[in-house]
């Protein structure tokens, strides 16, 4: 945090504006130019070829009908047909949208509040703060696929922890019941996400200038007032990161539902609809790509403002 806040200072040239550096770069010797070109070029080609070209490919394929197995000559271009079909006929689409939305709202509310609360509690001199932090961070290192496995041991009607603790006559099938399984899975996903949010806010809180709080206290503000009126607004950059991370996480959600039941019976997600076309039974590349483009559009909705926030500062220096 601080390291990066100092960045403008370190970079801010007292004398030489960036333009001069540009000149220097062109003044490089031939070999150096070539070396630098390769150092920048190779990674960029790898990244663009395997990330951005396929992303653009999704857009192109979303206007086609294709089974993906045959050659390119089998591609039939059908305009917006896939989108029309998705919005009007495809039965799994709207449930998936709904589930992704619930996923997003749940993650934005539960882990964010819990993570913020824990960060505030731990951001002070208390004994054993490190131990508490370790325990709370731990779920972060586990994969969501693995979390799916571990939580099934808790949810299973057949001797699972939760049903044993509840001790009902008729055990609840948390995973099998399509009315509640989404929330059961979300609790497991939130279990992991909370530690991450807490980490982000702890870093954010450490970056807040203590004199701000002191000034507020001198003016007679209560601790609660200080937090909501001073500390929280000052952490705006962290709040933005939390929002971006959470939205992306909600769009990416896949592993955990796939491990549990391949994303069926109440656990449909947009990501599942995409992958079903290559590893599932549906093999309709066009329709899958159209769903991918919808994912892309939503994610760009947060990526672009985020880039703007991050890099507009850079321009100023």
């Amino acid at each position, binding site marked *: 945090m601080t390291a990066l806040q100092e960045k403008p200072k370190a970079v801010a040239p007292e004398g030489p504006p960036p333009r001069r550096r540009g000149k220097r770069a062109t003044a490089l010797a031939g070999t150096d130019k070539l070396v630098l070109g390769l150092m920048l070029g190779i990674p960029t080609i790898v990244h663009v070829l395997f990330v951005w070209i*396929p992303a653009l490919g999704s857009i192109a394929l979303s206007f086609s009908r294709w089974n993906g197995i045959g050659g390119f000559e089998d591609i039939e271009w059908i305009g917006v047909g896939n989108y029309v079909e998705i919005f009007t006929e495809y039965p799994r689409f709207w449930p998936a949208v709904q589930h992704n939305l619930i996923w997003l709202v749940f993650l934005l509310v539960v882990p964010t509040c819990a993570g913020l609360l824990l960060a505030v509690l731990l951001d002070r001199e208390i004994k054993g703060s490190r131990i508490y932090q370790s325990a709370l961070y731990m779920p972060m290192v586990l994969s969501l696929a693995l979390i799916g496995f571990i939580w099934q041991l808790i949810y299973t009607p057949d001797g699972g922890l939760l049903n044993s603790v509840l001790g009902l006559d008729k055990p609840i099938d948390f995973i099998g019941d399509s009315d509640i399984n989404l929330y059961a899975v979300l609790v497991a996903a939130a279990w992991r996400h909370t530690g991450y949010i807490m980490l982000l806010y702890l870093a954010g809180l450490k970056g807040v200038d203590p004199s701000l709080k002191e000034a507020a206290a001198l003016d007679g503000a209560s601790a609660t007032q200080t937090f909501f009126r001073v500390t929280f607004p000052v952490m705006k950059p962290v709040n933005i990161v939390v929002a971006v991370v959470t939205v992306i996480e909600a769009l990416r959600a896949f592993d955990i539902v796939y491990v549990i039941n391949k994303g069926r019976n109440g656990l449909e997600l947009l990501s599942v609809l995409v992958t079903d076309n*290559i590893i599932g039974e549906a093999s309709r590349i066009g329709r899958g790509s159209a769903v991918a483009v919808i994912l892309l559009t939503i994610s760009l909705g947060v990526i672009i403002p985020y880039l703007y926030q991050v890099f507009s500062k850079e321009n100023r220096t």
Partner: protein
Amino acid sequence: MTATLERPSVPPVKKRVVTPTRVVLHAFLILTCLMTLAPLLWAVYASLRTYDDTSVNGYFSIAKSLTLANFAKAWEVGNLPHFYWNTFLITIPALVITLLLSSMVAFGVSRFSFKFNLLLLMVFTAGNLLPQQVIVTPLWRLYRLIEVPEWISESGSLIDSQIGVILIHIAFQSGFCTFVLSNYMKTIPYELTEAARVDGASVFRQYWQLTLPLCRPVLAALATLEFTWIYNDFLWALVLIQDGDKMPVTSALQNLKGTFFTDNNLIAAGSLLVALPTLVVFFVLQRQFVGGLTLGSTKG
């Protein structure tokens, strides 16, 4: 990472007194931590019990005896050494090459100024934020098109090969690493490489012998993070590898479920074995792990 160190230490104002508020605070924190650890502890408990014990007494009971037999069985029946090896073959090259390529780009954009510097950084940063599903379908198709010699991949193309999975990890993860590394390199005084340049050091020497050693802490943090991320990957291998035998351990879990039938004790033991490497990394390198995430999130 340095952030935590730079925080001005608060002078101890008064002696710590045991107040009711503190007691409540600690009670709350202990309870929260226990609830956080509960799922794992439950899995550990289940994994240590015999099938006979739990099938008669249920899981929610005092264990008659504890045993490590489930771990041995999961290890053998699940053929875990083989899958660990697959993971190792994918994770280590992907990790090393990602850091190498990212540090090169970061060095280029932070030490030299071109017109397209910002654009390049944006491309990498945005790329790392895309949901994988946006990429996966055309990538799967692209992999079938790219022909490679048979000694690299039996299928003759990138599909169904570990090289393919390594490649997409490199391409995808280099977004995040480039971003973090370039932010870090910008904090290194410009005069340093300038002086080396005046002394006649080539661009490569400025990168390899001057800049990289200074980036050791951030490289360690990124290596820790990337290890867990690549190790934990499920989707790429699931989609790009068809032959179950070539899968890394995280994606192979899916098939293990079938192998273990419905023996929950065995599933618990298998899951814990798969989790073990990341848990070890977390306990040993927690500072690096947390530091990496903090650096990556606070992007200015």
